[in-house]
């Protein structure tokens, strides 16, 4: 059995998910592929299975945070050492998985490597709209200030974690719009992360999870979570610790 897992969250992406799965198998042969079908109403799960992926079906739409956490739970249960998130809509180029892996292996202290759109000098490829870049820059400033290291693309979901990261995220992962908070979660648990440049492509199908009307909610929600998070004490989670999820500790 392989030790590396690519987690592909997909919601109604029947047209592109098979392509993503095949591309991962082709460009990252050392990785098993798990498609997390987040309550799709189309044939996403069937297409993914036909393309040779394991499929985790959520009984209804949990949102990206809940779906990804399900993927990390799978990785934890099945003993994977490395997990990489690759979006099912084709934005993340599986070519870069090898780069992420190399970066993660280059430093044994590292627990997470994120592919950043904004590090590549050329700046070509898919860069998203001006408004969205402005939002990302605000998050970038906030996250860089809190973590004390430069974070250029805190909203990038193209990231790879080692076993410690898998353990952490399987137990505690933010609900919606999780990427920014996940970096801070890592930081709070004193795990190390870094970024490497990647080129992202325009999505093949579907629409962004974040419409323009939702982006205000996005900004407010994430900034609130970041701010409140500063006042939350999160002791470093060891593998045998009780999960930090509120629901499991509630009476």
């Amino acid at each position, binding site marked *: 059995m392989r030790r590396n897992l690519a987690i592909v969250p997909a919601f109604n992406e029947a047209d592109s998910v098979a392509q993503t799965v095949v591309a991962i198998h082709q460009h990252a042969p050392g990785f098993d592929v798990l498609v*997390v079908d987040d*309550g799709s*109403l189309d044939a996403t799960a069937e297409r993914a299975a036909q393309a040779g992926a*394991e*499929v*985790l*079906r*959520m*009984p*209804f739409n*949990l949102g990206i945070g*809940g779906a990804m*956490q*399900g993927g990390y*739970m*799978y990785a934890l*249960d099945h003993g994977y050492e490395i997990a990489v998130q690759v979006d099912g809509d084709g934005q993340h180029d599986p070519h870069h998985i090898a780069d992420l892996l190399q970066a993660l292996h280059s430093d044994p202290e590292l627990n997470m490597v994120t592919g950043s759109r904004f590090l590549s000098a050329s700046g070509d490829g898919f860069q998203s709209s001006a408004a969205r870049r402005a939002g990302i820059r605000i998050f970038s400033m906030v996250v860089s200030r809190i973590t004390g290291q430069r974070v250029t693309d805190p909203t990038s979901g193209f990231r790879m974690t080692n076993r410690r990261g898998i353990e952490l995220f399987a137990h505690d992962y933010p*609900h919606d719009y999780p990427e920014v908070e996940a970096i801070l979660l890592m930081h709070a648990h004193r795990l190390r992360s870094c970024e490497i440049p990647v080129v992202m492509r325009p999505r093949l199908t579907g629409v962004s999870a974040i419409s323009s009307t939702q982006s205000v909610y996005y900004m407010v929600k994430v900034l609130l979570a970041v701010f409140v998070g500063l006042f939350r004490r999160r002791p470093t989670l060891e593998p045998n610790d009780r999960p930090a*999820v*509120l*629901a*499991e500790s*509630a009476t």
Partner: protein
Amino acid sequence: MSHITLQRGLAIALTSGLLLLVFELVRRKRLSERYAILWLLAAVTLFVLAVWKGLLTSLASDVGISYPPSLLFVVAIGLIAMILLNFSLAVSRLSDQNKILAQRLGLLQQRVERSEALANRLAPDDGRASADDAESEQAQPVATEKLSSGR
């Protein structure tokens, strides 16, 4: 004086109605005690304030409210805000638990399908295995249908 009596009569009727309603819902087990406690507290407090006129008046003058029924509203709004916050807590906890259940269900389903496929490959001629399989094939669309109609 008569319109104040009317107001008091209305306040007493409404608060005792609320008290009875909460009691009846708990008695029929439609409302669990856990969530009824705050409602009962609110209903009893308001009822006492409505019935015991001297208390409301003296409390109102203590805090400098010249129109005593306003104090009733202040207290009522405070209690209702408490109840609503309590509900938000309950909803947050339920959605957390719901998420965990959905994730666990997905993981279990994947495991079951995996082992059924494996069992089928190991013993394809076993009548029992294929019967199980047919059953699960049938169960699948029904479950999906139920969930999607629930949206």
